[in-house]
């Protein structure tokens, strides 16, 4: 009770300090006067009396200090006092304060931005309830590469697993939306009926889909995303039950998804149930296109689910050998979503930490210089009784206060930067729309602020209180001439140089890698080429009955449409060549098939067949993209007919399978030989098409710029029984191809007004987009490195000019004694050179150790590329020496008379 009462009294003691201070001063004064009077009465002279009274009291200042400690809570009290003092110091030297705050705002701000990205992508859970239970379930091939899953297999996993609360699957397809003002092509997610339930999401309006919606015939229902509902249906509250036409079939709207719903960054506008017509070839064991997402039963580890699903997988393999060599991989959905960007993010997060460290070193230097100037003040305070710990605490409070103010500014910067970053990285990062400056970022920044303040304040503060009172007071206003001060500052600058060098080398490697990417010959000529995507509805353009019987005539109508479009586009003024392909370069390896080479013994299992990329082409595809035909001939219009049975292979295919021999005239197929085709999946009279190789085309990078060309087989669109309803048109123009877009649209409308033209992009834009991620990474890392270089240069400049100023008198004497400018320059520069050399040496070692982390991000350049190391070191050394030279040169132009009069 008494304790509590005392505590409360002490809390009150924190306030109204001035009045309490005055009151105590008065009490002490009255005490002293009474004592003096008593002493005088006892026979002392007034001076003696006062001195005796003071001695008996034990010092007014000490008594006050003790009293103060008891009056309030010394910790809080001290802190508040120090904060006030700190604010006063900040106001008193606005230039210093401005520099410190700017450096901090940049350093901490960059950290806050990177943290908000890392927090959103790597730390914050996905926006679903109990998101950690969600797992990406993928069929993986032997080498671990994830692949898709076939529908019948998914049904097995869904029905037979015992470890998941629910398992769902999905795939994304573009649908043509017609019947409105403008035909439109929208991406739609086709999902098994428990999809939303698995995620734990309920429709905002209407009903979720149920198992009944998967039944063929009842499957034409659709759930709209909130954005699509607003855009296309004006947010109609009575949209439920409305009919919309997708791929020429009527679908009933059953609900609207909640606002902000998104799934693994897919830009789907709606979801529809997954359903297959009886006998649909898609629903077979060798059509792999599904991805599965599952929710673990609560408390079940992913490993249990993996074992459980692989048990089912083994059972399926026993019945369906074509699955051999695959297994099921279960990974956290969140981890799977970010695994592409995670290494880059961590590298950048580390880099930004380096920037902050450099900023800290710089600030520590500034404070060291200031500490030297404040030596006398501090010595004085120690002399009149302040404890060293007390002063240490005060100095640290000052630096933390600076850090706190700088961090507040940093948060303002971060808010702006996050907005910019979001718009820059939309195509590169998943979930960027979620990146924001939130509570976690605030907390992180607060922690960083305090740590930063302590880090850059500790060394200067420790050195400040480590003074020899006699010396410091005697010296007058002269700041310390001690070598230790210089050594501390030089060490800090060397550290800055080392850190900056690591960052610069990292950035240099990334730039060289980006340059290597840009110089890659992807195998085609992107200049003046426009690409557009055209997709035809199956209902109208594909004879599904013939298709099931593997007749090439199944695609006769779509072949005619694509052929007509090519004819039309050719006549547009300004167009030189037109072709079409089922998948453009750099779009990804999207149509892999097993090839059979009939000029050699046939393998006994499917797994031994070589895998190739299959592309069907139309018009003058090779010519339009500038892909050379290196031997044989290109396709002619005569090849565009069913059963023309010709093929062109890529040079890589020739190299890999004919090893310098001549592939022309050889017979191949893009299907397994008949004896390896699983029975029941093909009609009784099925025979694989046998194609004759008529030409070899130059290699083209279809996967990505950084991916080596793989074997490709090209075939004319019209000849095969396996067609596609989506083709990408390649239009080479005489001049700027973008100007042709309206004319091209008009011509397509002439052929069929219901077919939307989508994905209009120049080939150059596609190439640029494919390097958007490395470009962004390089830009961000480059920015950090530039910042680091700037900070390091400022640091060197500061230390050098400080050292020169300190030695003004010495320089004056030397000059008076006849030393020339050159000698002075050498004298001053010597220290700078040593500093830079030490920093560079440490930085090189650091870079060798750390650039290894970049390895996965680099293309065509080793993580220890000597050229980059050398060039970057040279640049840094040049900048560093320049920063050292400027103040040193200024010192040589001193007037000796002036210099000697100094101090």
């Amino acid at each position: 009770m008494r304790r509590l009462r005392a505590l409360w009294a002490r809390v009150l003691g924190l306030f109204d300090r001035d009045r309490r201070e005055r009151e105590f001063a008065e009490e002490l004064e009255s005490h002293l006067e009474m004592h003096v009077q008593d002493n005088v009465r006892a026979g002392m002279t007034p001076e003696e009396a006062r001195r005796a009274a003071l001695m008996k009291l034990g010092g007014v200042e000490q008594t006050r200090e003790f009293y103060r400690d008891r009056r309030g809570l010394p910790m809080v009290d001290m802190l508040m006092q120090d904060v006030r003092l700190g604010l006063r110091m900040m106001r008193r030297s606005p230039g210093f304060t401005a520099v410190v705050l700017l450096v901090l705002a940049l350093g901490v701000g960059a950290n806050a931005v990177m943290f908000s990205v890392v927090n959103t992508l790597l730390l914050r859970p996905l926006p679903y309830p109990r998101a950690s239970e969600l797992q990406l379930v993928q069929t993986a091939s032997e080498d671990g590469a994830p692949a898709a899953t076939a529908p019948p297999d998914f049904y097995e996993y869904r029905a037979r697993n015992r470890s998941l609360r629910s398992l769902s699957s999905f795939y994304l397809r573009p649908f043509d939306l017609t019947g409105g003002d403008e035909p439109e092509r929208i991406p739609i997610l086709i999902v098994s009926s428990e999809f939303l339930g698995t995620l734990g999401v309920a429709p905002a309006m209407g009903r979720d889909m149920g198992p009944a919606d998967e039944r063929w015939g009842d499957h034409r229902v659709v759930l709209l995303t909130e954005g699509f509902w607003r855009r296309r249906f004006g947010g109609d509250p009575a949209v439920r039950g409305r009919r919309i036409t997708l791929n020429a079939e009527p679908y009933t709207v059953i609900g609207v998804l909640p606002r902000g719903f998104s799934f693994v960054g897919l830009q789907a506008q709606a979801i529809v149930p997954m359903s297959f017509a009886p006998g649909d070839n898609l629903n077979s064991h060798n059509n792999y296109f599904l991805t599965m997402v599952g929710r673990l039963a609560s408390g079940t580890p992913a490993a249990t689910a993996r074992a459980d699903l692989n048990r089912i997988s083994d059972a399926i393999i026993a019945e369906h050998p074509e699955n051999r060599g695959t297994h099921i991989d279960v990974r956290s959905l969140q981890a799977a979503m970010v695994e592409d960007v995670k290494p880059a993010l961590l590298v950048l997060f580390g880099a930004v930490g380096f920037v902050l460290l450099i900023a800290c070193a710089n600030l520590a230097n500034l404070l060291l210089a200031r500490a030297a100037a404040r030596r006398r003040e501090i010595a004085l305070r120690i002399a009149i009784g302040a404890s060293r710990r007390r002063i240490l605490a005060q100095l640290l409070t000052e630096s933390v206060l600076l850090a706190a103010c700088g961090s507040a500014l940093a948060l303002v910067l971060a808010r702006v930067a996050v907005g910019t970053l979001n718009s820059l990285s939309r195509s590169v990062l998943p979930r960027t729309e979620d990146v924001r400056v939130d509570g976690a970022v605030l907390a992180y920044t607060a922690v960083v602020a305090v740590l930063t303040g302590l880090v850059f304040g500790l060394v200067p503060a420790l050195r400040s209180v480590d003074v020899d009172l006699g010396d410091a007071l005697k010296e007058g206003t002269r700041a310390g001439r001690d070598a230790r001060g210089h050594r501390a500052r030089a060490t800090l600058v060397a550290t800055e140089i080392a850190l900056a060098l690591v960052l610069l080398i990292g950035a240099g490697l990334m730039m060289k890698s980006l340059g290597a990417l840009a110089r890659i010959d992807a195998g085609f000529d992107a200049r003046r080429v426009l690409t557009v995507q055209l997709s035809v509805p199956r209902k109208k353009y594909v004879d599904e009955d013939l298709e099931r019987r593997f007749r090439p005539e199944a695609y006769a109508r779509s072949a005619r449409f694509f052929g007509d479009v090519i004819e039309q586009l050719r006549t547009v003024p300004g167009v030189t060549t037109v072709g079409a392909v089922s998948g453009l370069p750099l779009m990804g390896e999207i149509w892999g098939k097993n090839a059979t080479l009939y000029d050699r013994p046939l393998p006994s299992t499917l797994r031994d067949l070589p895998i190739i990329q299959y592309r069907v082409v139309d018009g003058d595809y090779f010519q339009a993209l500038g892909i050379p035909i290196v031997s044989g001939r290109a396709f002619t219009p005569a090849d565009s007919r069913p059963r023309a049975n010709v093929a062109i292979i890529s040079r890589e295919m020739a190299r890999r399978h004919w090893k310098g021999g001549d592939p022309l005239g050889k017979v191949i197929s893009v299907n397994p030989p008949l004896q390896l085709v699983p029975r029941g999946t093909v009609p009784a009279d099925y025979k694989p098409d046998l194609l004759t190789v008529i030409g070899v085309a130059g290699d083209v990078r279809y996967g990505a710029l950084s991916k080596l060309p793989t074997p490709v087989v090209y075939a004319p669109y019209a000849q095969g029984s396996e067609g596609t309803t989506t083709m990408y048109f390649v239009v080479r123009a005489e001049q700027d191809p973008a100007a042709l877009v309206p004319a091209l649209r008009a011509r397509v409308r002439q052929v069929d007004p219901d077919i939307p033209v989508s994905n209009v992009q120049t080939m150059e834009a596609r190439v640029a987009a494919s390097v958007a991620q490395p470009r962004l990474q390089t830009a961000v890392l480059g920015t950090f490195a530039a910042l680091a270089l700037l900070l390091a240069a400022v640091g060197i400049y500061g230390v050098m000019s400080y050292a020169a100023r300190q030695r003004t008198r010495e320089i004056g004497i030397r000059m008076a004694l006849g030393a020339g400018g050159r000698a002075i320059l050498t004298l001053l520069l010597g220290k700078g050179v040593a500093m830079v050399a030490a920093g560079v040496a440490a930085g090189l070692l650091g870079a060798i150790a750390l650039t290894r982390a970049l390895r996965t991000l680099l293309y065509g350049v080793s993580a220890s590329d000597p050229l980059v190391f050398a060039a970057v070191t040279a640049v840094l050394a040049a900048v560093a020496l320049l920063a050292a030279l400027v103040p040193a040169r200024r010192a040589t132009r001193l007037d000796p008379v002036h210099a000697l009069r100094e101090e």
Partner: protein
Amino acid sequence: MTRLEVQPGTLALMVLKTLQTMGPLHGYGIARRIEQTSGELLSINYGTLYPALLKLEQEGSIASEWGVSDHNRRAKYYRLTRAGRRQVEKEARDWEQTATILARFLAPKES
């Protein structure tokens, strides 16, 4: 003969006891009184008295108000509160016990 330093913790009791016997008194008076009572055996830094007074006041054992001294000078007077009176009795008892016990240890052993 050297003068003793004040044992920690005893100063508060001395202050309380002084106020109990002398009635309201200012800081200087309390300090002088303690020295006199100790028969000049104790040496205290008068400065240490004030934090002790503040502590007792914060704990509610004493209260203070400004008054006028014998010599017509403004001074802060401290007086015992009711809680202080209770405390002084309790602590005095405790100290007597402690002293008795210690005395037994220190007394020459009877064989």
